[in-house]
């Protein structure tokens, strides 16, 4: 675990009876970066985040946050950590301002911090309203405000864009970028939607069935955006066999369409192989595989 690490885990493991939720996870999140922690539902993201925050006890391994070992029940480094875990929650009978005031008192933040964070999260018009009447999106803003209130060095955010509208997502993205670039804050954020965080993060780690199966930096992410030939064709199953016989090694069939990889220089050959066998081509275009497709491929989802 280097001194440069904001979060470091070594062989972190958590088992719930017969389910291995997190399996020997080694993470190293550097100070000042935005790390996207990606995985499908049930991949082990939230369990990992709970262990980072000392909410649940690891079955094995170690967690270090901002240089302090995290142990359940100990206050550890949490004066310097802001967090949002899973769903946004607040005391429903208290106003937005009162909810934030509780956080202020417990983190020993200055009085002015409440007003500042209300303005930052654009909650001014809602400050005196009870939390129970807030929309899901505004509850999420309140939770983010709570996480930011004491100006933490590290933000651990579990699905921070949940329930936010597109404008809200852009706003949060800009806010996080500003926090990193202007204040050197480290952001560790989970998501199950790669495209949502791909353009924000410095690195991503992809979790699947409790294991970190891939880590990519920004350049590697871009390199994953592959080009392919998208083919609409009659009898797609037969077309796959024909293309394979013609020497196209990487052909996929989904939803009645074909994806022919490594074939951008051989488009006429693709057409000849199919038309020559009597198949009808309805469409043949160059297409772009997005990061989401890569993520889904890795984690066993469609396409």
């Amino acid at each position: 675990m280097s001194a440069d690490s904001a979060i470091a885990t070594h062989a972190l493991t958590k088992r719930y009876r017969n389910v291995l939720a997190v399996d020997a996870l080694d993470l190293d999140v550097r100070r000042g970066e935005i790390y996207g922690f990606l995985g499908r539902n049930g991949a082990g993201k939230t369990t990992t985040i709970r262990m980072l925050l000392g909410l649940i006890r690891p079955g094995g391994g170690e967690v270090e946050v901002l240089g302090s070992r995290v142990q359940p029940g100990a206050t550890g480094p949490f004066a310097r950590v802001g967090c949002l875990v899973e769903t946004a929650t607040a005391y429903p009978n208290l106003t937005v301002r009162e909810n934030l005031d509780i956080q202020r008192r417990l983190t020993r933040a200055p009085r002015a911090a409440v007003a500042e964070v209300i303005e930052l999260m654009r909650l001014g018009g809602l400050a005196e309203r009870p939390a129970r009447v807030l929309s899901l999106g505004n509850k999420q803003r309140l939770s983010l405000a709570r996480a930011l209130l004491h100006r933490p060095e590290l933000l651990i955010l579990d699905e921070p864009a949940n329930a936010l509208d597109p404008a809200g997502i852009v706003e949060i993205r800009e806010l996080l970028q500003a926090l990193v670039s202007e204040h050197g804050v480290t952001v560790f954020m989970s998501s199950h939607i790669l495209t949502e965080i791909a353009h924000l993060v410095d690195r991503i780690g992809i979790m699947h069935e409790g294991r970190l199966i891939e880590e990519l930096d920004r350049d590697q992410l871009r390199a994953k955006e592959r080009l392919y030939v998208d083919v609409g064709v009659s009898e797609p199953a037969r077309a796959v066999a024909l293309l394979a016989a013609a020497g196209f090694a990487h052909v996929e069939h989904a939803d009645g369409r074909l994806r022919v990889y490594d074939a951008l220089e051989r488009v006429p050959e693709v057409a000849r192989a199919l038309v020559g066998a009597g198949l009808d081509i309805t469409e043949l275009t160059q297409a772009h595989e997005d990061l989401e497709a890569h993520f889904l491929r890795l984690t066993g989802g469609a396409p």
Partner: protein
Amino acid sequence: MTFARVLATEFLKLRRSKVTWVTLAALSLGPLAIALMMWIVREPGRAAQLGLLGTKANLSGLTATWPAYFSMLTMMVGIGGMLLMSFIVAYVFGREYVEGTAKNLLALPVGRHWFVLAKLVVAAVWWALLVVAVLVESFALGATLGLPGFSTTLAVTAVHDALLAAAIAYLLVPIVAWIAMLGRGYLPPLGFALAMLALGDVFSKTGWAAWFPWSIVPLYIGAIGQPVTTIASGSIVVLALTFVAGIAATIAQLRWADNAQ
């Protein structure tokens, strides 16, 4: 000053909470019901219009006097208090799980034991205010009824007994708080409290009443046989152990158990 800060936030959490008023309303109904029974006993003719209620009140052998009124009041504070106190603690502790805020509290730079202690203080203050309000209400109702047999000594004894019953009821609640943490909600602690009250009734019939925590209040206030004038030292030890064990279990639960919501 960590405790003071945590305590202040725990009191702040009660702001605009309807549950505080619900508990006041629930406990206030007790003296009203007792006063109504006193009135029925004293005015059987006028109460006859109430039908069975008047008959039952007469059959119970009650007398409409201050001693009888205070005796029933102490029973209400003792038995009703054990249940209401459990309700208060279930709310104060269980709401963090029901409202999903426990995860926010537990990732703060504040020792978790402070939350347990602050919540117990809040419950104690809440309970004390309720008992005081009910005692004031009871005196006002008794005076309005014009019950005979009042004396300062009797009033002081009644207040002492009610406060002691309330205090004993409070000693039982840390265990209920632990169940609220363990069960992460309201129903498990309330179910536990009801089960313990029922068990207390069973123990009272076996001669073990002085040794089972939930039988000690009924024993003291006279719900089981005649009221005892002093609490046995064994009972005091049992109550103290129950109180300390409950606090220790609640702190341990919050500190070391998994807190996944």
